């Protein structure tokens, strides 16, 4: 340890900021050490079991759920989401599409999730289902259908929402996520306006968070960003949240998904 500190001190004399770099290297090593054996796998297992379990008033499974690749096709579905669905006439992200499937196939009303609390009841079910679906797009390229006019419209809406300032602190998403090199404490913040940052973010959510042992969907992640802006929290799976996801995913187009992720 003394050696490390000595070297860091020397480096700090030679070049300011070198110590921060060595800390970042050590944290990168820490993240690498915990990457194998992501507890998100436990949620994925639960999700797979829930997917195949008859539930709701209709006592049906989700095995006929159409995530865009045809009924029952899970593999690669998340890599192409959000996408436009003709049957609902809407662009849907994974969570809003799962709501559709739960409602139509199982008879579970969307309100059970939309009006619910995080980490409880059907919202918790949603976490596990999302973990299951995204695992089956891990390693695949993000490929949104940007030729679709509805998806284009949502992209433009998402971009506007990203730069829209609100709340008592007059923050927008771009306040924290619109420039390189920003961080909160030791946590680096991705620049979501560039491909690299967007891939780092969109490509690693949903994720297991070691700080609270919870699995968070992108809906949960986005909601918490709004909460931290001290502004009105969006409704679960509302248009603005889907639009922001389209903006992020489109910016990350072509990047490889590492879902589900593992976060601090």
């Amino acid at each position, binding site marked *: 340890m003394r050696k490390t500190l000595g070297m860091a001190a020397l480096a700090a004399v030679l070049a300011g900021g070198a110590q921060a770099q060595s800390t970042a290297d050590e944290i990168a090593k820490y993240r690498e050490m915990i990457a194998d*054996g992501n507890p998100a*796998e*436990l949620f994925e297992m639960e999700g797979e079991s829930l997917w195949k379990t008859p539930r709701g008033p209709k006592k049906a499974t989700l095995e006929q759920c159409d995530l865009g690749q045809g009924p029952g096709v899970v593999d690669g579905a998340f890599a192409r989401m959000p996408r436009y669905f003709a049957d609902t006439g809407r662009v849907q992200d994974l969570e809003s599409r799962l709501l559709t499937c739960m409602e139509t196939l199982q008879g579970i009303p969307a309100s059970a999730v939309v009006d619910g609390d995080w980490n409880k009841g059907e919202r918790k079910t949603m976490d596990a289902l999302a973990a299951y679906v995204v695992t089956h797009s891990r390693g695949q390229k993000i490929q949104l259908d940007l030729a679709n006019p509805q998806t284009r419209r949502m992209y433009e809406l998402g971009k506007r929402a990203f730069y829209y300032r609100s709340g008592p602190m007059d923050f927008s998403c771009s306040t924290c996520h619109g420039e390189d090199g920003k961080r909160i404490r030791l946590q680096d913040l991705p620049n979501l306006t560039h491909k690299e940052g967007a891939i780092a973010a969109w490509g690693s959510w949903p994720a297991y968070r070691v700080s609270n042992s919870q699995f968070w969907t992108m809906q949960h992640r986005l909601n918490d960003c709004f909460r931290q802006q001290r502004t009105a929290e969006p409704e679960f799976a509302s248009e603005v949240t889907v639009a922001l996801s389209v903006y992020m995913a489109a910016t990350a187009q072509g990047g490889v998904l590492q879902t589900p992720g593992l976060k601090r």
Partner: protein
Amino acid sequence: MANPMRIRAAVKDGFTEVRVLMSHVMETGQRKDSSGALVPAHFITELTAKHNDKVVLLAQFGPSVSTNPYLSFKFQGGAKGDKIVVSWVDNKGDSRSDEALIA
């Protein structure tokens, strides 16, 4: 209610490497809830891993093992298709036993 474990086992260079993820709160007994009341300790105390019928690892945990515990170890021998069984008990008497085949 205890959820299933994820057990992965694979043969490499004459050893079988076993990786286990357990679903457990691993509550330390030192934490307070939002009303200020102490959350009682709840954690896995003992774990055993077997290859076919032979014990290949015994472990005892305290509450400072992380939530949703991870464990990896390796033993000599083992062949593709052999059965690995991992069982645990916690301090409240709950238990769980799951198995996997060596890949």
